[in-house]
């Protein structure tokens, strides 16, 4: 094993795959000469040259569409959005072209593409730079949506995403790029669609994914001191969702809390709550509970961010709620 930053894990995945397959190229704003707005692609222009590491103008709709067209014609683009907030400018091409192409062409045209970049809040940036998009893209059939929470998963999943023949949305976090974690020395892949039990426990299941899963880890540590044992499932992929893993865990713990950063309406948590009440109703000892961002655009002021985002204290409260212990 070796210790690397999240951004380095992503870079290793990109480099290894680009060395392996000439048809893969990276495009996006500031990815080449500036070495990436968040330095994920550091050194890649030097290794692969401007044909394969391509700086674009600020024209998300255009370059997303160009990448989809290139994918229809045999290439395997990796498109970096500086953040997924800006993917809204491009979303027509992601949804109407990439996601629907195979279906509407009766299987003739496939779109092997990865759209990647950071999602979610990243400090005091106000609402246009703070949105979590996991559930937005997960809503759309034709896409796969991957949201890793640590460097090891990030590398293995990004390699799988690049090799995948379907369009994959791959979501990172500005706040995770500098975080370190252990990864294997050699090559490895992690399959898309498989959740990972990051912490085994017996009393309550906490399902989460991406950066915000840290609030669950912190909550579980605290709760352990009070004798409450949490099982933490990292979904890693929010489309498809590994329902089986969740149901198996709920059958054991009989209690479920879902933690996510997105807004509550039509979210991953509402989807999971539906699925669990449908398929594990008899196993539940308490209603499924969740912790999400407040149902408002995220403002700039720290007091309002504090009042809005999931944190360990809110996760602890949610766990105590499903455990029927006083807070």
């Amino acid at each position, binding site marked *: 094993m070796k210790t690397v930053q999240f951004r380095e894990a992503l870079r290793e995945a990109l480099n290894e795959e680009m060395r392996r397959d000439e048809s893969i190229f990276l495009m996006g*704003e*500031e990815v080449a*000469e*500036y070495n990436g*707005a968040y330095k994920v692609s550091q050194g890649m222009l030097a290794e692969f040259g401007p044909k394969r590491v391509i*700086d674009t*103008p*600020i*024209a*998300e*709709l*255009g370059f997303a569409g160009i990448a989809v067209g290139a994918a229809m014609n045999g290439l395997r683009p990796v498109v970096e959005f500086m953040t997924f*907030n*800006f993917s*809204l*400018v491009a979303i027509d091409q992601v949804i109407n072209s990439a996601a629907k192409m195979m279906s509407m062409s009766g299987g003739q045209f496939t779109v092997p593409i990865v759209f990647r970049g950071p999602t979610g809040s990243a*400090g*005091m*940036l*106000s*609402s*246009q*730079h703070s949105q979590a998009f996991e559930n937005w893209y997960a809503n759309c059939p034709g896409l796969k949506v991957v949201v890793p929470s640590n460097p090891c998963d990030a590398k293995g999943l990004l390699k799988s995403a690049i090799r995948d023949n379907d369009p994959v949305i791959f979501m990172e976090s500005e706040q995770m790029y500098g975080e370190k974690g252990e990864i294997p020395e050699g090559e490895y892949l992690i399959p898309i669609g498989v959740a990972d039990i990051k912490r085994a426990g017996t009393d309550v299941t906490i399902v989460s994914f991406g950066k915000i899963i840290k609030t669950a880890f912190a909550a579980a540590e605290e709760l352990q001191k009070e004798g409450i044992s949490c099982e933490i499932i990292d979904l890693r992929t929010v489309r498809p969702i590994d329902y089986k893993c969740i149901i198996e865990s709920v059958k054991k713990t009989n209690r479920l809390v879902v933690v996510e950063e997105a*807004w*509550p*309406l039509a979210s991953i948590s509402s989807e999971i709550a539906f699925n669990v009440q449908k398929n594990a109703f008899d196993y539940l000892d308490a209603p499924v*509970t*969740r912790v999400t961002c*407040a*149902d*408002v*655009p995220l*403002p*700039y*002021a*720290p*007091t*309002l961010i*504090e*009042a*809005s985002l999931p944190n360990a204290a809110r996760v602890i409260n949610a766990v105590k709620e499903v455990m029927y212990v006083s807070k």
Partner: protein
Amino acid sequence: MEKTVAKKTKEATTKTTTAFGKDTYMYWYELMLLMRKFEEKTGQLYVQQKIRGFCHLYIGQEALVAGAETATRKDDRVITAYRDHAHPIGRGLGINSIMAELYAKSTGCSKGKGGSMHMFSKEFNFFGGHGIVGGQIPLGAGIAFADKYNGNDRVTLCYMGDGAVRQGALHEAFNMAMLWKLPVIFIIENNNYAMGTSVERTSNVHDLYKIGLGYEMPSYQVDGMNCETVHEAVSVAVARARKGDGPSLLEMKTYRYKGHSMSDAATYRTKAEVEEFKHKDPIESVLATIKKNKYATDKELEAIEEKIKAQVEESVKFAEESPYPDPSELYKDVYVQEDYPYIKD
């Protein structure tokens, strides 16, 4: 329709025909000095982490707003992107509320909810700082659409960066603005860089005013380091818009002295390049004119500087002493409907 003339820069635009008097020069000087001192302080406070988030300074570009302000009325409209501290100062919004916004305080011009990138002032006809590059371009046309619809003669100044002109939204907005003769003036703040990407690296078309020509929009390249040339170009465009003859595009050649944002070391350009532009500093050149024409004595100039320094200090004090928004503010200002049923589980 007036025939579209595309002027080349320098020869054509550094000379002006308008005679500017003492009052105008003194106004420009004070206004730009206020912007400069305010933002120099902002930069320091950012380093001290008093100001957070993304923060983009206008230092070097002040002549654009100063020259445009003397060419417009206070009831005209202004909209811009996230590099938006100078524009509301130009409109006349007090710096206390701008500093308080940077501090995320409830007394800020957006109640601490917007921060550096999202200054707004309805009172001063400032339609905001916008964070999605290019997003404000159609908005600017729409603001002008409403004024035309209402039959008044107000015009809208819609600012954008050189990077923003590569967004598709610009083309759709330009086309409709021309089709419907909207009273909007599109102003490109061409500081030659979009983050680390120079204009040359984003397109075949390096003279950005030419983008308007495809729509037969009157389009000009202007020396943006001079209040005089900016004023004159904006005046011509404003007159055209007020008459009902529609939009113009003004490419203002300018420069930002600082990095893109506070976290950018700006390694993509040379020190010499920055220095070259600092020699054309708009505040210095206005000051030189003032001194040459003896519009103010050294003592008077000193007094102005002292006054502005005190104003900036006062804004910091005001921001420091103001409270953060109360957490109960979270569910305010999202809907007009007062009893909107938020999901709170």
